């Protein structure tokens, strides 16, 4: 792809097995993460791994990419037994991985990040910036991303950073490319481009291993589907034979049960009233990232805000929470103007945000589950100058039960929880402030199907108690099945409003691509 057609297109036909994992067992202490897995990767095919968090897919990918070594079992590359003791070994064998977490240096340019650790040098041993820039540009063009290789990564938005992470793996010229949640921050159009790139790669004979929580997307790109459950490979099927219900059933061992569209709708008074809010984009361009948005949310109502990346959803949420100032308009909470209050004051008045990026904005990693839960309400859990520790423990334990956090105890470190349970802790923290309005930005990002269902059922339960909920999502199925009202945003404006029970995915998708200026607020 970067000009050289070497090992990638070497001998062998498409569909042949390139890599075979044989009887892989991996144990951590007393626990078995993989219980004897046999797994094949085929040349020129996209193999999609399905499975809930902890099912073993990430562990297997770590073994294949040399990050971890199997307890027993081995790998065969094109029929030859190999052992990979480090990621560099794997890279040398032609195996590259796109990690779920971004591993980029914000203060280096896109080019420097793409070639970090594998710099191209000229004869004198100096870095050949010219050739690096050229190759970086080629890869970025291929990904149809209009970023200059000289841009600092820190200046890019999250989705573009993920593109850089992908570009970094692409320049490795791998014959096996592992993609672990490559699209979590990408917009719909960027995902389309990525899929085109994947098609290009498979045509050249590259084997792709693809992992995503976004099931529909994964089914779309798959040639082969492999489902993991509880450390074992439970099902394999060619893409033609699978559909979403099948995948979900294989993953959880039963049919998914989250459809809340039939829940009763009894709303109270308007809790949150967003009135003509405008937010100036923090990137300094002077552009309005939120342009004249007005939304009312009533007690007991769950409103879903759907839109593509860059629609202004996150910016609106941050403005509502009080992190970013608003340029115009008013925010009224339960009849009271809170437009100019600080974050703590807004929380005290009853409005709190569950942020999008759990690791960066949600969790206090060095604290326990309990301390994370009580962080927002600790100032109210006092006796004299001190924290009322008994009361804190009682309330934390109640909350752990209420939001169903699966943990060894409230004193366990927060990092010992799975992603879904961490998310429940962040939501539980917000609920402990006894909010009137709960804002959630992508509450289901990066968590498995089971946990998603639990989180939405929790939201509906809270709504029945009178909470007003406004949440952002990028998954249409979620928007349709788990909301009372669906609002679509595009380019900073509200473009349409739907009753989720009386609309289709096609309608919603079409609305989200609307040119906001032409269709502002009108229904077609």
């Amino acid at each position, binding site marked *: 792809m970067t000009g050289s057609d070497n090992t990638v297109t070497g001998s062998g036909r498409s569909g042949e097995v390139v890599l075979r994992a044989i009887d892989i067992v991996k144990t*951590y*202490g*007393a*626990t*078995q*993460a*993989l219980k004897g897995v046999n797994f094949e990767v085929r040349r020129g095919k996209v193999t999609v791994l399905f499975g*809930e*968090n*902890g*099912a*073993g897919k990430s*562990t297997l990918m*770590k073994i294949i990419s040399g990050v971890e070594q199997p307890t027993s079992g081995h790998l065969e590359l094109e029929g030859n037994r190999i052992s990979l003791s480090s990621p560099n070994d794997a890279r040398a064998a032609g195996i590259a991985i796109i990690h779920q977490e971004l591993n980029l240096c914000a203060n280096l340019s896109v080019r420097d990040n793409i070639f970090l650790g594998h710099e191209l040098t000229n004869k004198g041993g100096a870095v050949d910036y010219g050739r690096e820039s050229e190759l970086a540009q080629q890869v970025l063009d291929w990904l149809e991303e209009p970023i200059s290789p000289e841009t600092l990564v820190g200046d890019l938005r999250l989705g573009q950073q993920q593109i850089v992470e992908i570009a970094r793996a692409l320049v490795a010229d791998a014959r096996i490319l592992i993609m672990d949640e490559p699209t979590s921050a990408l917009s719909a159009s960027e995902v389309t481009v990525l899929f085109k790139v994947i098609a290009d790669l498979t045509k050249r004979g590259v084997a792709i291993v693809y992992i995503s929580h976004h099931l529909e997307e994964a089914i779309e790109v798959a040639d082969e589907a492999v489902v993991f*459950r*509880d*450390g074992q490979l439970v099902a394999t099927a060619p893409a033609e034979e699978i559909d979403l219900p099948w995948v979900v059933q294989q993953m959880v061992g039963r049919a998914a049960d989250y459809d809340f569209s039939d829940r009763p709708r009894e709303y109270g008074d308007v809790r949150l009233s967003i009135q003509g809010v405008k937010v100036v984009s923090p990137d300094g361009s002077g552009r309005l990232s939120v342009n004249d948005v007005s939304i009312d949310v009533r007690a007991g109502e769950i409103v879903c805000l759907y839109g593509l990346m860059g629609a202004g959803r996150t910016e609106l949420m941050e403005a509502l*929470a009080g*992190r970013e100032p608003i340029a115009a308009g008013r925010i009224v909470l339960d009849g009271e103007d809170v437009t100019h209050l*600080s*974050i*703590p004051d807004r*929380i*005290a008045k009853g409005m*709190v*945000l569950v*942020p999008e990026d759990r690791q*960066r*904005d*949600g*969790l*206090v*990693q*060095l*604290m326990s589950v309990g*301390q994370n839960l009580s*962080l*927002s309400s*600790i*100032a109210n859990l*006092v006796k004299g100058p*001190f*924290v009322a*520790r008994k009361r804190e423990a009682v309330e934390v334990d109640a909350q752990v039960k209420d939001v169903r956090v*699966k*943990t*060894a*105890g409230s*004193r*366990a*470190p927060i*990092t*010992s*929880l*799975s992603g*879904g*349970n961490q998310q429940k802790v962040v939501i539980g*923290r917000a609920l402990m*402030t006894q909010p009137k309005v709960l804002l959630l930005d992508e509450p289901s990002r990066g968590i498995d199907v089971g*946990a998603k269902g639990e989180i939405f059922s929790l939201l509906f339960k809270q709504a029945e108690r009178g909470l007003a909920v406004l949440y952002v999502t990028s998954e249409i199925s979620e928007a349709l099945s788990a909301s009372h009202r669906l609002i679509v945003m595009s380019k900073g404006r509200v473009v349409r409003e739907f009753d989720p029970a009386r609309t289709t995915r096609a309608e919603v998708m079409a609305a989200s691509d609307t040119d906001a200026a032409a269709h502002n607020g009108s229904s077609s």
Partner: protein
Amino acid sequence: MLARLKANRSAIIAEGRALLALVIIVVFFASMSSRFLDTTNLVIMTRHVAFNAILALGMLLVILNGGIDLSVGSTVGLSGMVAGYLLKGWEIPGTHQVAYPSVWVVILVGCLVGMLVGVVNGILVAKLNVAPFIATLGMMYAVRGLAELVGNGQTFTQLFGQKALGNTGFVSTLHDNVLGLPFPIWVMIVLTVLCSLYLTRTPFGRWLYASGSNERAAALSGVPVKRVQVRIYVLAGLCAGIVGLLLTADLSAAVPEGGSGYELNAIAAVVIGGAALSGGRGTVRGTIIGAFVIGFLVDGLVLIGVSVFWQEVIKGAVIIVAVVVDQAQQRLQKRRTAKQVSGPGSSPAAPAARSESTVMTRA
């Protein structure tokens, strides 16, 4: 109780290491010199430790926030010089009358001077977004200059006050024994207890740990991170002000260069005590032990007559070894947590429960 021990495992390991270092130091010097464990000697060494320990408590607060305060040494000098100036008589501007403030007024003013320096640090860091290293480095120079300006470079001596004016007793108040122990040791004990309560029992303590570990998350959770930041610098300044007064009483002289270099000893104590310079991790207990490690080491080496050059080498080596061991432990800890997280199981509750048992068998 067991659960609590496990939850605080990393903290206890870090402190345990500092404690082990302290035990080794005590055993070593006790075997080298019979005077080391003598009560008088222990009291003297503890008094020396007290100055650094009090500074280190303030430094701990700042470091927990992920900051650093290089200005505390200079603040020690300034607070001492202001106290010395006042005790020598303050000529009220515009008049020819000289005021001799009482001991407690002097002590109050000394503390306020420290807090004022802290307020400036806090505003620079929290409101003007100056990096803590730079802000406090600048203040380190500026405040030292002020300390020299107070006496125009002179030392204030013979700070015993004048009986006729009723301002005697500065030295005796802050230096003499109270209930068998020198006053600075009592101050250290009281501040240690207060600081410990503050950090572990109040909402502020929770806010401090949270904002030091993940400031963005803390801010979104409603923690007033800027207020927390200002407050810790004020408290660090207050600690420095107190030390300035105690040192002045100890010497019965206010020296403008008093306290220079003390900031580094305070940082060393905090680090030996297991705190992370990146913030969010560290305890009062560990910090106090760290201060004792440094103080006993320095005095012990003098007691057994090791050459001054070797004293410096050994002190440096102890700090480095402490941090290297800490890093290794952190890595171990991380690997363990990583394994726990990637542990499998259809029900997410299972790995958590199981990893707990793993820990117990290893611990």
